[in-house]
């Protein structure tokens, strides 16, 4: 149970290998969104950067989907189901979405974290999926670990121990 798979910005992983731990290190305004089917043990995590895909340069780049909360959720759900997960059993946890910038005049314009969280909530509601737990917001960075073996999800912040979510 010690094979950490580190997910960088816009990266995703789906696994059912009990040796694997899916990790997104140092999430600030980014979101780590995990989906787990506890029965089949199909476990997924992705590291989203921005709330939604707009008319950017990567519009036609299918690998860029996981950079965005909205299409990342859709793509991960489809991929999870393809791997044998049952949509109705999915346990969804959302981590991150902090507002890292606390300086006068900068806060509101750049609050991508809050927008990411809101996007995730809306998207899951549309898909009729309940979000089981969240460790979101505030002004602090977080690392999320998803243990495939026992479906545990942990969150770690700076200067503190890893805690179960």
């Amino acid at each position, binding site marked *: 149970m010690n094979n950490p798979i580190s997910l960088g910005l816009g990266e995703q992983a789906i696994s059912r290998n009990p040796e694997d731990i899916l990790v997104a290190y140092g*999430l600030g305004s980014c979101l780590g969104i995990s989906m787990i089917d506890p029965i089949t043990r199909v476990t997924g995590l992705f590291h989203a950067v921005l709330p939604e895909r707009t008319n950017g340069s990567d519009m036609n780049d299918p690998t860029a989907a996981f950079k965005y909360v909205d299409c990342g959720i859709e793509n991960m759900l489809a991929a999870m189901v393809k791997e044998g997960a049952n949509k109705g059993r999915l346990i969804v946890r959302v981590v991150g979405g902090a507002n890292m910038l606390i*300086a006068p005049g900068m806060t509101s314009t750049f609050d991508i974290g809050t927008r990411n969280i809101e996007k995730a909530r809306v998207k899951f509601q549309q898909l009729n999926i309940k979000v089981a737990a969240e460790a979101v917001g505030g002004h602090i960075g977080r690392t999320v670990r998803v243990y495939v073996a026992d479906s545990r999800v942990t969150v770690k912040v700076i200067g503190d121990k890893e805690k179960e979510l």
Partner: protein
Amino acid sequence: MQTTIPFDQDLLDKLSAIASEGIKNAAAGFSGMVGRKIEVDSPTLEIIPLLTIPKVVGGPEDDAVGVYLRFEGDMVGQIMMIIPYQKALELVDMLMGLDKGATKTLGTLERSALGELGNLCGSFFLNSIAKSVNADIRPSPPAVMVDMVGAILDIVVATVGGISEHVLLVHANLMDGTRFVETDFWVLPDMKALHGLINNSSI
């Protein structure tokens, strides 16, 4: 992935010359602040893909201090100075004229000192660019944060993501006698404006 305005070697060379001047100016400002001569070695410039930033600065979970400025005027953009936590403590020692290792934590005073340093470096750096290309560029007050590298860099990534896929990295070492502290600046200019400004200048 491609940048909308691709960087060519020529532009990078011109930028290197400007950045070198800017960093020297920043060191001069820094010296004035601490009242001792602080030197800086030749800065190196790199253009790197945005999504690889956390990997370049070390582990994304490592503790670090970030000093962040925005700038506006003829050119808009952002500067993030990022220093590993231990190095930041050494930098505070240097700033306050303390023995190496004297600073153990970053309280309000220490953060404020680092913010001032970032402000100074950023402003001198921007002034050099502004002067070289004859443009009006104004920096914002600095924001200082202490957290995981990845989380700090999210600010940069989130605000330029989807617009620009590459950033300019300036790497420089600040030296005070035998002590030295490595610093990294991430400069995220509006590439289009930068391109135009530099090509229209007489550099």
